[in-house]
């Protein structure tokens, strides 16, 4: 009955809070194209128009006959008993056949374009790691960002997609790309961003509790901005403590809050709460005692930096044995680098002040 114990992340803190709604195109159906796959829009509206024409013909004939040939007396006979009209039947078979074959060829050609990664995009390869329920992006120069990604305008980009747990899907509506991410294999998408701005990046394949929160911001910027590496915001060990705590809090909100209670205001409490991990003794932080199971043996340990780092990178080594968290396994977060983990620890310790 776990499902009745755990709750949602706080509702006021949406990951898309500062992302503007994308503009909608002239016909009102698609977000304005911000990538290079124009043929999607072309075929979409062509098919749409064909559908409207057929719909008008079908319902027009139907409603006309219903009105014009409606039964006025109970024994009224039909005006015609025709059951065949070979030319008509040939026409309404052949014309749709031709039309759908055009759509098929157009669509297939377009999909080849989308599925064949050009050389230029291969030269600019990112990695997107999907994990319940956040995205980690690795840039060509091996730096990382979480829940947001920067790409350069007019430069083809390829994302190698991988999942560490269940199915996810990479979906950027403004770029018209979508690709499932299957655990255990790599897949990829590519596109060329053609419009500056911040766009939605959704997970489109249902992946569990916080599927709808698995969101990232896709920033399209110019090359000058790219060189500044605006995503490189992780404070180093010698940066002011406040900055590291602030970054740790932000990261915890993006990554950890979907299971852990990371502050007095967050609700989820699947994994151990962070609220009383440390107490403050003068200038020192003293970790609490905790019962864990290691190699099948229950023992008591003291929470410290090493324990937290191990719990993030290899969580099944020491499993918390306290109720109500007993028996709930965390998955590995080995895609978090040491600098980020240090900020998380700084944030955890800052909670002792309260």
């Amino acid at each position, binding site marked *: *009955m*776990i*499902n009745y114990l*755990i709750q*949602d992340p706080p509702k006021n803190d*949406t990951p898309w809070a500062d992302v503007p*709604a*994308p503009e909608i195109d002239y016909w*009102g159906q*698609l*977000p304005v194209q911000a990538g290079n796959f124009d043929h*999607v829009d072309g*075929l*979409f509206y062509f*098919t749409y128009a*064909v559908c409207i024409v*057929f*719909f008008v013909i*079908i*319902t027009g*004939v139907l409603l006309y*006959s*219903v009105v014009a*040939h*409606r*039964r006025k007396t109970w024994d*009224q*006979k*039909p005006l015609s*008993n*025709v*059951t065949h*009209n070979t030319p008509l*039947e040939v026409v309404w078979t052949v014309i749709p056949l031709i039309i*759908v*074959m055009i*759509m*098929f060829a157009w*669509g*297939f*050609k*377009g*999909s*080849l374009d*989308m599925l064949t990664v050009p050389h230029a995009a291969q030269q600019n390869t990112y990695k997107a790691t999907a994990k319940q329920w956040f995205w980690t992006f690795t840039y060509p120069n091996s730096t990382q960002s979480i829940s947001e990604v920067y790409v350069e305008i007019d430069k083809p980009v390829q994302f190698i997609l991988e999942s560490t747990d*269940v*199915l996810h899907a990479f*979906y950027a*509506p403004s770029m018209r790309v979508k*690709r*499932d991410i299957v655990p*255990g294999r790599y897949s990829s998408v590519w596109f060329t961003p053609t419009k500056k701005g911040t766009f939605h990046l*959704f*997970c*489109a394949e249902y992946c*569990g*509790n*916080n*599927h*709808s929160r698995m969101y990232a911001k896709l920033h399209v910027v110019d090359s000058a901005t790219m060189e500044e590496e605006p995503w490189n915001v992780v404070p180093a060990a010698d940066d002011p403590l406040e900055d590291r705590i602030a970054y740790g809090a932000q990261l915890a909100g993006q990554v950890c809050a979907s299971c852990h209670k990371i502050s007095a205001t967050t609700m989820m409490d699947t994994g151990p709460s962070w609220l009383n991990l440390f107490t403050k003794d003068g200038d020192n932080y003293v970790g609490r005692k905790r019962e864990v199971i290691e190699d099948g043996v229950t023992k008591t340990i003291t929470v410290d930096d090493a324990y937290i780092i191990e719990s993030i990178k290899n969580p099944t080594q020491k499993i918390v044995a306290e109720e109500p968290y007993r028996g709930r396994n965390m998955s590995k977060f080995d895609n978090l680098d040491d600098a980020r983990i240090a900020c998380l620890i700084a944030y955890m310790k800052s909670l002792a002040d309260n």
Partner: protein
Amino acid sequence: MTTNTPAVDVQTPPTAPPRENYLNCSKGFKSWALTLDHKRIGLMYLIGVSIAFLSGGMFALLVRLHLWEPEGMLFTNIEYNQIFTLHGAFMVFLFVIPAIPGSLGNIVMPLMVGAKDVALPKLNLLSFYLWLIGAVLAVLAIVLGGFDTGWTFYAPYSLYTDRAVVTIGMAIFILGFSSIFTGLNFIVTVHKLRAPGITWFRMPLFVWAIYATAILQVLATPVLGITVLLVAFERLYNIGIFDPRLGGDPVLFEHFFWFYSHPAVYIMVLPAFGIISELVSVHSRKPLFGYKLIAFSSIAIAIISFLVWGHHMFTSGQSTYALFAFSFLTFFVAIPTAIKEFSWVATVWKGSVALNSPMLYTLAFLIIFAIGGLTGVILGALNVDLHLHDTYFVVAHFHYVMMGSIALAFFAGLHHWWPKMFGVMYNEFQAKIACALIFVGFNATFLPQFVMGSRGMPRRYATYVPEYAPYHQASTIGAMILGTGVAMMVIYLIASLLIRKKAKENQWGGVTLDWIAPTPPPHLNFDHEPKVVHEVYDYSTLDYDSMQRDCN
């Protein structure tokens, strides 16, 4: 037309005891629980699937209410995931798949071929009880912690979640057998029990549709059975078929699942086509346009439907060759479907079109199915699907087919054969109002979903980006109207059983054997073995004199 009752009987005063029929020929719980009469079994199915539909509908209304606000109004994300899964699973497995074959197919098909019963009556009863066990297990699964996998049970999430996936898997396994046995039964019935004179091409199209469905049920359902069994084994014994951690392949699950579930779409929709074929003809009093073409297109759809499952997986990373083949065949299946729609419209053309409630439901079907079918063509295009896949556009498309077309055809058939089944008529005026509410409510619910879908709203989201809020709210208002219409329908149909306004012998002027049989039919359907000498849908045989006597 030839009723088997002499004219004098029609003028018997209403105080006379009703003639013996299948409803009153025996009484008591046992006479129903152990009945072998296809009509009684059909009625039990009707009650069962209606309850499943109404529960699934309640879940749908909860989903829509929740989505009124971007951050959700009613539930936590986790509860929402369970509610939408319950909606999908109840609707698909307990309602849409068994609804028409189990209830109307059971009741009407043997009448139409002039048989006393289905070929294997005990198997028929077993099918019903398997359905019931499946339904009980599904409810049990809710009690045991629910399930949050979506109705598609995609691995590996369905392997990792700590919910009652095994229980619901067993429910689906058992429901599959119910479906297979029904299909088997109907195939044998159509082959062996046709009355003298009913050649293959004198079979009403509903029978053709039920026959094509039965073939699909027998051939496709075992694959689903194996798949859910493998998921259960995987969860219990970690054998590593689908679990990537054990070397399994999640995409294999998708292939298995859709190899059944795409034909299942036609298991659901072909009987609906059959109902519409009947109703369009009877209520236009005109033989069906292109009878043979419609019959063969049912079979063609049944065959091609086995070859298009991959269009559910265009984004999953199939090879380009697979994409080519699946997209091509998907467009190809549009053709027989389009032929059916055109033929129905051509049947109404220059007919004698009665605007009674079954026909209004039929017209609503024809309009909604046109939208459902045409938007399917949009999704068939590969590059467009890469954008629209797993968005609300898909949600809207398949609701136009599954709810708007299949459920509406079911309602149409229910209104059409209600007087035949019970010998009573419902309030026509209320029926027309309810039909209008359902039509308006349905379109108000799902048209906005096309728009937000193509604008990028992914499906199965408990919370969403605020710019979609107006469309979600329009959709929620539509759902409330739709719910009101359905509630009204349930009330007047039940009320008709209490008010007992007597129906005519041949309420709509049908000429197929189901209307030649007495109303309601006796236990063995016909007083004498029927002989058919006319072509099917030959309305020149309609006996206007006896219909007029019936009116008085």
